């Protein structure tokens, strides 16, 4: 186990270095600079020259890369040129938003997708099967921004005054400033606490404010719903084919031959084992969602990693682009690792080998 983890982490290092190099290169290849992006029509060459000089962007590119590399090794991801705050601070602020959204979307996808996949797999090639598969595929085929807009229209406008009305965007109702839990508990603020407190749902629970929790949850429903259609199709498909796999295996036939009721056969014997590959998919999906949530974040005005990265690319905020991409990659590596470890625990075959 430790060997697996160790080997994985070790092989991640060159990849992370490669990512640093690639992001740096891509960021600097973008035409124009942060000064022009900020000043727009008012940008003039003299002002921007001074700006670049003050921020060290006029140094030779290798020097800049060397400096940056050194900083990263000491944990300093640089400062956002736009906000004049450390990139790490921005990350602590925005990563939880995306993680919360992705987790909610994944939860929805599992809650809907797994039963659908089981139904489809159980009645292979029947009308139900076809309808389920086509339905799940339609969900993933609708561009998420179209779906988001439609959902907004439906729930925020048409159903606005009904109990089904939902807010169209944002994280919390305007003017709500929930107290971070570390303040409520009288704890000293630090990075980890700050990170945890930025998960609105969790923080609301920790400060025991049910109204804030409901508010946060209501704001999360529509974006999570829109985003969930992407992994839902994959999970449905995966569950279905995995179940079909397992249903054809010997021990299932044995169970049936023994005369066990069909439901027992499916649920107790087949289902558990068929869910194993789904776990792998969950891990991969979470990774995809974190990076891919940018469209949902834009439509629903959630300031998460995706939107911040996109804004930073447009605004040529180099350190944000570099730092955030690196962090997303790190998160991705961690998730992959955890998924593999989880899989190892769940699948006895792999454990034994």
């Amino acid at each position: 186990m430790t060997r697996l983890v160790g080997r994985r982490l070790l092989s991640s290092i060159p990849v992370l270095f490669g990512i640093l190099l690639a992001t740096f290169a891509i960021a600097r290849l973008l035409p124009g600079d942060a000064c022009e992006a900020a000043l727009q029509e008012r940008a003039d060459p003299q002002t921007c020259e001074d700006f670049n000089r003050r921020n060290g962007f006029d140094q030779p590119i290798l020097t800049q890369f060397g400096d940056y590399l050194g900083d990263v090794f000491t944990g300093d991801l640089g400062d956002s040129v736009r906000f004049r705050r450390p990139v790490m601070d921005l990350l602590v602020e925005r990563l939880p938003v995306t993680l919360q959204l992705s987790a909610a979307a994944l939860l929805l996808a599992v809650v809907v997708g797994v039963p659908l996949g089981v139904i489809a797999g159980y009645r292979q090639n029947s009308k139900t099967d076809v309808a389920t598969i086509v339905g799940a595929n339609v969900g993933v085929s609708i561009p998420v921004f179209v779906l988001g807009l439609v959902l907004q229209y439906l729930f925020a406008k048409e159903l606005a005054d009904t109990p089904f009305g939902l807010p169209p965007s944002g994280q919390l109702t305007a003017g709500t400033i929930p107290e971070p839990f570390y303040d409520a508990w009288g704890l000293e603020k630090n990075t980890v606490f700050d990170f945890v407190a930025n998960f609105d749902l969790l923080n609301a629970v920790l400060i025991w404010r049910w109204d804030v929790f409901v508010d946060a949850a209501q704001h999360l429903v529509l974006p999570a719903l829109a985003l969930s259609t992407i992994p839902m199709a994959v999970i449905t498909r995966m569950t279905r084919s995995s179940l079909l796999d397992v249903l054809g295996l010997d021990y299932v036939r044995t169970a049936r031959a023994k005369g066990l009721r069909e439901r027992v056969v499916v649920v107790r014997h087949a289902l558990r084992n068929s869910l194993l590959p789904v776990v792998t998919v969950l891990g991969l999906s979470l990774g995809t969602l974190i990076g891919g949530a940018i469209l949902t974040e834009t439509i629903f005005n959630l300031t998460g990693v995706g939107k911040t990265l996109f804004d930073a690319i447009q605004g040529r905020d180099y350190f944000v682009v570099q730092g955030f991409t690196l962090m997303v990659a790190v998160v991705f590596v961690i998730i992959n690792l955890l998924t593999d470890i989880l899989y190892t625990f769940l699948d006895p075959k792999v454990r034994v080998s």
Partner: protein
Amino acid sequence: MAVEEIPLAEQHPTAELGPTVQAQRGLWRDALRETLRRRSARVGVAVLGLLVFLAVFAPVLAPYGEREVLIESEGLRPRTEPCIHVSVDWVPDVVVLRQVESFLESNGFSCPSAEPQHLMGLDGNGRDVFSRVLFGARVSLLAGVVAVSFAVVIGTALGLVAGFFGGWLDNVLMRVMDVFLAFPALLLAIAIVTARGPGLFNAIIAVSVVTIPVYARVVRSRAISVREQDFVAADRALGVSELRILTHRVLPNSLTPLVVQGTLGIATAVLELAALSFVGLGGDPDQAEWGRMLALERNQIFTSPHLVLYPGVMIMLNVLAFNLIGDGLRDALDPRLHR
């Protein structure tokens, strides 16, 4: 990550490896038949067929030109609502058709035959949306296919080399692929297009580059299993050149997962191209392309929903078709699912 899941075929690489190219052809015919046996795949093929039909016959079917601006010639404002001539005399007096008629009328879509007909209304520049949807089929269908083809060719080459020859070459190539895979696909595509400039061509390049690692990975794992096989050792003993082994043994055996992944990849590519247009990197607004048409009008979704709806539905159909076909192919090519 650009890959959605590990295809089952990759999980079980020893399945259906065949020594000869000849046997492969029989496999393809069976696979096709098997695919079409699945109903959902049939739906996909039908939809794709419809789209291809529209693309091919667009010049004939389209009432107006792709770039024809109608502001002066018809005196209509941009974003005019759809206007369908329902009360035509030759429509038979069938109940269903009459119901359709009254539905259209009550929703304001019908218009007297004196006014020019625009089935899907006019876009933001006063051009006929229906015509542009038809012409857009050509570009939108091709764009996804081209993006994936490009990625498949390069990815396959990389994967073959890495998987078959192994060693440090494999290591280096795969690390580079890992670096690309670690980037959120859409954001990497955005960065590439921002660097090169908006436009469909650059968007296709960006989407290709982002998905190359997926195919490289798929082909590599196949190549690794193939190189251990007896018939390869036999070939070597017989003095067959490495290149020939690559092209005649490894490549044919890698095709099945490639085809599946590629078909599904077209679906993803189309969505990513639409996403790139959505964030404003689509380029030429005159060219009819579904993603671009949708992106240009997205702020009018509540006031002129027809401008978002029709291109959106077309994109959805495009993606759906390839998803269903890809699904069907995957099921057909995995022997363990045959009952």
